[in-house]
């Protein structure tokens, strides 16, 4: 942990060397997700509600997804650009060091400029938490915390899975973007609105509904099943198969030789 903080401070310092560029990127990240928010706002301006969810409820859902996504993207970024780490031979160096590979990949890249999205999520929380009509008792606060933590774990799992596939293909698979970028884009609405089969897929295959849809139902009082509150914790288990797959990948690894 101490070592990680050391890495983090070095990376922060190096990114701060180009201050204008850094803040421009933060603002840019913010703007990109802000236009997405505006799109959502305009949709609700016209329709007022969707499948029984109101604007402020959807906003709460959107900010929870964006929050966990931007945290995962900021800290697990090393796995997101993993195809680069493999192709430039950086992974060979990582393998010879006496530290866990996952730790080193994690610590090699921390993208602080991604916090622009994080700011957006915080701003939406600040608006949605008071007006969403949720009575913030302890269990509701706990549910939201579980949602955020669960989201962080599932997104991290996806990034790791994405990186593990690179061991076999040596390049990033654009298709995986559906689950990362796609989840961020489409996860702004509760997953049930996409229909039964999408919801099933996101429950049993890629467990994104476990941290988004079900606890969200409990949070907004649409369901009173306390089980839903703890589902994000089950979703966190998704990280385990991803890590196993990563291990298989590491064993399979052959250097690209460059």
């Amino acid at each position, binding site marked *: 942990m101490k070592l990680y903080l050391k890495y983090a401070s070095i990376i922060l310092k190096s990114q701060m060397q180009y201050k*204008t*560029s850094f803040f*421009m*990127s933060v*603002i*840019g*990240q913010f*703007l*990109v997700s*802000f*236009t*997405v928010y*505006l*799109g959502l706002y*305009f*949709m609700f*301006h*016209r*329709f*007022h*509600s*969707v*499948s029984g969810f109101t604007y402020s409820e959807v906003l709460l859902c959107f900010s929870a997804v964006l929050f966990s996504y931007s945290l995962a993207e900021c800290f697990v970024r090393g796995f997101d650009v993993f195809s680069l780490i493999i192709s430039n031979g950086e992974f060979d160096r990582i393998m010879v060091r006496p530290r866990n590979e996952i730790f080193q990949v994690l610590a090699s890249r921390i993208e602080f400029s991604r916090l622009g999205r994080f700011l957006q999520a915080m701003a939406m929380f600040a608006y949605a938490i008071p007006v969403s009509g949720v009575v913030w008792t302890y269990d509701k606060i706990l549910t939201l915390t579980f949602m955020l933590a669960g989201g962080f774990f599932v997104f991290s799992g996806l990034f790791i899975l994405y990186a593990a596939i690179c061991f076999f293909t040596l390049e990033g*698979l*654009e*298709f995986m*973007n*559906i689950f990362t970028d*796609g989840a961020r884009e*489409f996860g702004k*609405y509760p997953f049930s*609105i*996409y*229909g039964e089969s*999408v919801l099933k897929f996101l429950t049993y295959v890629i467990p994104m509904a476990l941290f988004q849809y079900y606890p969200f139902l409990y949070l907004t009082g649409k369901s009173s099943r306390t089980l839903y509150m703890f589902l994000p914790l089950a979703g966190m288990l998704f990280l385990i198969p991803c890590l196993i797959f990563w291990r298989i990948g590491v064993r399979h690894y052959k250097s690209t030789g460059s």
Partner: protein
Amino acid sequence: MKKYLSFFRIRFSNGLQYRAAAWAGVSTQFVWGGMTLLLFRAFYQTGSQAFPMTFPELSSYIWLQQAFLALYMSWYFDNEIFDSIISGNVSYELCRPMDTYTMWFIKNMSVRLSRAVLRCMPILIVAAFLPEPYNISLPVSLSAGLLFLLSMTLGFMLLVAFSMLIYISAFYTLSPMGIRILTISVLEFFTGAIIPLPFFPESLQTLLYLLPFASIQNTPFQIYNGYMKGNEVSAAIMIQAVWLLVLLASGKLLMKQALRKAVVQGG
């Protein structure tokens, strides 16, 4: 003219080499389009009377958008061009007996076009066989089809002319990252890539329509699906043409100015 044409041919066939990437892209875009339609279906079921387009019109719009994503994607910029400006290698380009603006313009067009050619057919074919109303239908009439092709070409050139302005700005700023991400978010929003323009509030419609961004992908797609009819079509194409001329002229002018002042860094 011949030299530009052969330059185009080289770049174009170069772009056609990336077939595996194209297949990955096709499947991604297919899922993306499908999810978008499911999203709009939910809004349609909630309040169909507030829906500004008919659902089949929207389906055609979304599938065209996915099929021709490579033509209109706002986030693609040629890093070689930026690098050459920043590193000063642009001086070699200037030595060539060609017009640099035209060459860069063609380079951008050919990359986008080759990607679109690889990707559009599978998406269009599969989307055509989807159950109604989620499928893409044929253009509403033969004339709409022809006008769609004309308008699509204009919109495509308009986007390239717009991105040329961003390349040229690198002569002045030497660090294009900020302006680049700013452009992307503005383009995504105002071209109707996030939500189609008819879904914006009524009060903004006229303004949106007059901005150059609506002329990029909104106009051709709305001609194809019959959302724009009769006089609206010719007016929209006129707007496209005017904006194209304005952007081309200002791009050429700015380029000339930039080159007059350009300082090549290093030796």
